């Protein structure tokens, strides 16, 4: 939808525009970006996932060597019997007040799982019904484009890859995070009911491996969260506000054909 020459290299075209006789005056417009439902589900997910991780850590504590009662092969970084680092150190649990709280962690985890799961399910349903999935699902050249976005973000590549509402890297990230959410629910069910749902547990590589997956998916969320927050901070206020208020301000020249580069993020 964006004008190629304007959006891909605005710095070089702007002087041309100002040099011409009567450039069309840019008009500030308010463009809808994120629907109300998406915004609520996005922000609701933030405390829900945070509390799921908080209660999950209380459960892990009971099974981690540091501070807990049992060492477990899952909550560490290492290969085979060689361990580089154990998750998590005593001080981590102590500082966050997560020690000796297995029962508390379980009761919160098995209460919040409903809210987390329902919110996630509603998001997926809404995305499909509203058609928003078209903006989110990566296209055929997504991997190549995402690589270009990556290089551009690191200032290793000058041209910004063309994009719709989201760039290819965003599409991949936002799709993977939903798949990860589904993975968390499936691996969670597999370790919540490993006997009643033993077919699922077996399908996921067994009780121990399902726990491994459940744990590292969560670590993936933490990594996603950090990168996400950094990217949002870089993208700026206009982008952030769109996730709260739903709209973004764009510079449109006569009828909104040309879009200012600042709305690209």
């Amino acid at each position, binding site marked *: 939808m964006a004008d190629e020459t304007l959006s891909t290299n605005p710095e070089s075209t702007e002087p041309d525009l100002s040099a011409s006789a009567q450039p069309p005056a840019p008009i500030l417009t308010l463009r809808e970006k994120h629907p109300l439902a998406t915004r609520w589900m996005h922000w609701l997910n933030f405390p829900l996932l945070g509390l799921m991780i908080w209660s999950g850590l209380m459960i892990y504590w009971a099974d981690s060597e540091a501070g807990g009662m049992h060492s477990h092969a899952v909550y560490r970084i290492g290969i085979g019997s060689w361990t580089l680092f154990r998750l998590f150190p005593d001080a981590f649990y102590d500082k966050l007040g997560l020690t000796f709280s297995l029962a508390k962690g379980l*009761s919160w985890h098995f209460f919040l799982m409903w809210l987390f799961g329902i919110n996630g399910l509603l998001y997926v349903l809404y995305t499909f019904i509203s058609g928003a999935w078209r903006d989110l699902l990566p296209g055929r050249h997504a991997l190549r484009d995402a690589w270009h976005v990556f290089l551009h973000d690191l200032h290793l590549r000058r041209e910004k890859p063309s994009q719709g509402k989201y760039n290819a890297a965003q599409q991949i990230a936002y799709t993977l995070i939903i798949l990860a959410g589904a993975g968390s629910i499936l691996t969670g069910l597999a370790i919540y009911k490993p006997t009643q749902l033993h077919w699922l547990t077996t399908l996921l590589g067994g*009780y121990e491996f399902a726990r491994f997956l459940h744990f590292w998916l969560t670590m993936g969320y933490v990594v996603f969260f950090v990168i996400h927050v950094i990217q949002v901070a870089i993208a700026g206020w206009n982008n952030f506000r769109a996730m709260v208020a739903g709209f973004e301000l764009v510079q449109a020249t006569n009828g909104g054909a040309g879009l200012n580069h600042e709305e690209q993020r």
Partner: protein
Amino acid sequence: MSLDDEPQSLFGANEGAKDPDDAVRAQARRRTRRSFLAGAVGAAGLYGAWRWILGRPEIGQVPAPLRHALDFNADISHAIFGNRGLAPTFPISHAVSDVRVNGVIGLDPALRLDRWCLQVKNLADAQNSPHYFANVNIWKYADDPSIMAQDDSLDTYVDGEGNLDRENGLPKGPEPGLLLTMDAIRALPHVEMVTQLKCIEGWSEVVHWGGARLSDFIHAYPPARGAHGRLPRYVGLETPDRQYYVGLRMDDAMHPQTLLCYEINGQPLSIDHGAPLRLVTPLKYGIKHLKQIGSISFSDARPRDYWMENAYDYDEGH
């Protein structure tokens, strides 16, 4: 540039300008303000819900809404799975030879096995049995003083004559029922199974159990049926000293893999593993596998459960 809707413009920094974009900016400010306000109300609502949950009366040391959620989850699980599903079984070669001992609450290491009796309460037609007693609570479990002397950390409650002190939760009135010996349990069909014992703390072990099905026991010693004509809804088990106690739904008790277990790896239970008789129910976590059964009772009301009183789920099915 003119795309200057920075946060400070929320507070009217651009008042009075004549720019045609001002109307748009004003609209943007209005919507932003409204959305942040809605967000704040939402956040306050969540925080309020959090405070409300924490402020509710506790049931078994868990705020009532969370306790109801745990019970709701158990109802869903029972509705979906019933007691149809079987826990996976393993070849005997997978069973560990040295089974882990984890938890000794209510376990009396000095219990005299020759003075052990299983108290069974709330049975139908109990008075016609030769094992009938008008009050099974008169039975005195006793400790072996020589074993007691070896370890002063033993978790038992013994009076001056070596009899167990069983005051914890002892019913006020007499309870009629049967007093059975191990012979009665061994007379039931013997079954062996190799299943995984899962601890709620996270570890698990494959164990080779031997004993009698609790369902066979219940058929041999049928509980009294209430006015509804069905089996009572719950089975309660307690240790001789009444320090540890669990409750099971009847469908869990009737599950073909729920055993009154008296053997591990073909050998009689050691005292650490709950001699002479313990519960094994592989659809539940280890905390339901009560060691050293002293009494079995039946009721429609949910029997007390040690770990439920200590903030865990009542059902503990997995």
